[in-house]
């Protein structure tokens, strides 16, 4: 276990948050003009860029993976060399990158209405500029915003959040230091309006009785993130829709 306390006696975490508080979320849509959809999200210090291309005709090297009745999602995740505290060169096909790409691909296959785009390909490119914990969650949130920007049909938003359990209190939105502290970390992606969990991942071990508490914590964290992102998307819609209806 860690040599320092994750929660102080007054009930604050080491970065000053309360256990059920999220980090500050800031986002932007439409950051690249070349991509069909793009977004940028900051969750505290974790900063992720997402770009979506598609749906488009399958490229030559992916031709074999084309499905006749739905679209094929290709996800590429990469972390910049300067994103972590130690400058580390990461090659494109390394284990962690492939792992993360596979998880995100799985998540969005459940959320995108793939039957509407048979024989096409949708590319999701994620780039982490600064990593400070909850990487999977920030990537999923960024990709959701980018998909909405691209106008790709989805069943619902996909919001992800992480949580950990220490001394019977659940901590929401883990950052890097809390990740390293050795407690179990539980991440999940949910569709907030339909109230369905589409992806969950647990690193570490917890007792069976504690699982319920963690799931509740993560769900409430996701709903909070959803509130922030939805407000932003609606604000954007109002801005652009007013000119749109000038016809």
């Amino acid at each position, binding site marked *: 276990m860690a040599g320092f306390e994750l929660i102080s006696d007054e009930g604050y975490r080491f970065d000053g948050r309360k256990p059920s508080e999220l980090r500050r979320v800031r986002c932007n849509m439409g950051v690249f003009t070349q991509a069909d959809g793009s977004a940028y999200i900051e969750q505290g210090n974790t900063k992720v860029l997402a770009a979506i291309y598609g749906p488009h005709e399958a490229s030559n090297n992916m031709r074999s993976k084309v499905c006749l009745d739905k679209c094929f999602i290709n996800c590429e995740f990469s972390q910049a060399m300067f994103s972590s505290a130690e400058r580390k060169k990461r090659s494109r096909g390394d284990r962690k990158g492939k792992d993360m790409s596979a998880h995100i691909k799985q998540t969005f296959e459940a959320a995108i209405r793939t039957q509407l785009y048979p024989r096409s390909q949708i590319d999701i490119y994620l780039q982490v500029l600064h990593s400070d914990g909850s990487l999977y969650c920030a990537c999923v949130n960024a990709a959701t915003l980018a998909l909405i920007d691209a106008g790709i049909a989805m069943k619902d938003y996909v919001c992800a959040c992480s949580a950990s359990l220490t001394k019977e209190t659940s901590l929401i939105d883990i950052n890097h230091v809390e990740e390293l502290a050795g407690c179990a970390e539980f991440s999940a992606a949910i569709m907030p309006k339909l109230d369905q969990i589409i992806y969950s991942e647990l690193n570490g071990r917890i007792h069976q009785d504690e699982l319920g508490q963690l799931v509740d914590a993560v769900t409430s964290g996701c709903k909070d993130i959803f509130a922030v992102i939805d407000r932003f998307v609606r604000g954007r819609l109002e801005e652009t829709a*007013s000119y*749109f209806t000038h016809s």
Partner: protein
Amino acid sequence: MSNITIRLPSTRRTQNQYETGTSYLVTPGDVITEDTDYMRGHGTYCTGDADDKLYSSVAGVVERINKLICVRALKSRYTGEVGDIVVGRVKEVQQKRWKIETNSRLDSILQLSSVNLPGGELRRRSATDELNMRSYLNEGDLISAEVPQVNVDGILSLHTRSLRYGKLSQGCLVIVSPSLIKRRKNHIHNLSCGASIILANNGYIWIYTTQHSSQTEEGDGGFIISNESIPIEDREIICRLRNCIKCLAKRSVVLYDTSILYAYEASMSYKVKQLLDDEVCDEIVNKTIYLLQQANVGNSEY
């Protein structure tokens, strides 16, 4: 000798001076209606369970036409319809057909039998024609075509059987979102400012010099391109038009010949390269929107 402008990074205040109206905006997963009377259009879906609620699958404006409900997203790939005009780039030359990239979900197809070959339209396609396909259209060429048919799987079949369509040259391509192009009767215009424009439905806008009628005799099929030099005044007109269209597209103003002409007239007080500045762009777009609203007040139908 040139001036360099450097801007500090900051968020621009968006000017929302115009009434938004009562458009119904939805985001993915919103319930649009619980009434089972309505038919589902694009951008909506039902979960198929007992609850029969109609959900939205994109973020956009809800459009209701009698009993049909659709949600139109602000940006999306082009979905072809019969009768549209498209501008596309040749991606591949295959046996007896060309694959054209048109900013849609799947690449479109131009059959060898759908083009005009030199020597008259009624000529049968021989084996030499097939071998000489590259001399007609090579990879990377831009063409304009019409959509006579949309296949079941969504692939568009194109044809260039009229002299209005064919290989494009001596002009400038501007790419905007397909949702900004208004569907009208005519998409090829000869603008009064001295250039011509093709507003293709897939968001590719082609600006070119107005052809003088001394060209193409019958039977050329639109594949011969002239490489004569264009005078500098014509080039300036094309550049100015291109910058105006980019400004309008940045602020999501619907593009058609009137709006482009208004923007062009509003831009005459600036030099062509000043139009790339954000403030000048805002001013021109505001003037255009104002003029469009004035025109709307008078008219009832376009």
